[in-house]
């Protein structure tokens, strides 16, 4: 009954077959959104995927109440962002602890070297300096192809609020990038 042709979700948690198919479709449609939202906070691909998968796993038992595309995507963005922030804070605390006990002249990993470039690093510094609400808006605005209405739907706020936050975020970024330049 719960066997689906694709992912085969629900071997343990049970959803009806149509719900299974819808959930599978949502995963397919929204995985990039979730991964990018998480990446906007964590900036580590593996961590971002891990957090996005966790968000989908949390969505699964609630999916009967999140069937609508907009509801699901809005819930997914909020949950992924929250999980990513939690992970980022935990990592920061762990890093602080490890810095106290480890060799301070540790060499960065090859992955860090490969990913990092000066421009991106400056940009991320500027994004990190933004308040959380502004960070989320500027990241979603980029993810959603600069569509204010879509960002407003995802965040469940008026479009005017998105525009206002977007303006403040851009101004903040422009200021930070000029200072960092």
């Amino acid at each position, binding site marked *: 009954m719960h066997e689906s042709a694709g*992912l085969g979700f629900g071997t343990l*948690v049970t959803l009806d077959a149509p719900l299974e198919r819808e959930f599978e479709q949502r995963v397919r449609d929204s995985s990039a959104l979730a991964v990018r939202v998480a*990446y906007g906070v964590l900036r580590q691909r593996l961590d971002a*995927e891990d957090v996005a998968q966790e968000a989908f796993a949390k969505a699964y038992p609630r999916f009967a109440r999140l069937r609508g595309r907009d509801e699901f995507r809005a819930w997914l963005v909020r949950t992924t962002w929250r999980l990513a922030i939690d992970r980022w804070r935990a990592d920061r605390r762990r890093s602080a602890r490890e810095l106290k006990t480890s060799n301070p002249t540790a060499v960065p990993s090859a992955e860090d070297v490969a990913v990092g470039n000066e*421009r991106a690093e400056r940009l991320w510094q500027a994004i990190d300096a933004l308040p959380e609400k502004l960070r989320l808006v500027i990241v979603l605005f980029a993810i959603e192809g600069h569509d204010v209405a879509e960002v407003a739907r995802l965040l469940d706020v008026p479009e005017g609020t998105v525009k206002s936050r977007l303006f403040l975020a*851009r101004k903040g970024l422009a200021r930070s990038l000029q200072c960092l330049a």
Partner: protein
Amino acid sequence: MSCLKYADAIIDHAYGAPLSSAGAEHLAACEPCRRTFERHARHAHDIDETVLGAIAIEPSIDFRRGVRERIERTDAGRSRTRWWVALPVAAAIVMAVILGGLWEHSGSSPRAVVVMSQPLTATDVAKPSGTIAAVRPENAPAVSRTAGTTRRHDRMSRSHRAASPEAEVLVPGDQRRAIARLVELIQDGTLDPAKLPPPDVAAGKPADLVVPALTIEPIPIATVETNRRPDGGPGRR
């Protein structure tokens, strides 16, 4: 003059802020202000594109399989959690039943039920100093309830009655010695039970029964306070 007046508003407009109609008219008419606006608008667009480029990653091909595994792992964990939650709850219920049973039979209450399956002896009886509270003569009916006896004791009394056909006396716990002394007096012939006043059967107790004072259990203060209005009124119904 107008350029200075609208300069900040035009720059803000380039980053997404709304512009007043007067500002828009000035922007349309003023070439230098339009160039400023376009420069900042390009900067804003660069920021958006840079952010987009920085986060434009695609999920790996294993992403969906990872989601499935996570769901299965979460559900398995949830099952384990349910089991671990259920175990202490069940243990707590069993312990509560056992402790409740022990408390029922521990004699911790201020009253005692004496089942006289055998005559009491007076070997350990000192000179009685208290008042004889209650005694059931040989042919008197069993006392169904004594004032001050709680329902729990009544239940215990009924259960004892069902289990044993012997005579049964409900006495206050602190007067057992006096009862034993009375039995001793009857047994050695000093006291004739026939001369004892007959029990008041209609009232369900002996006529001269000295009824212990009714114990009124204190009402928890919290209950009283809850029902009292702040102004000291009678409280809500």
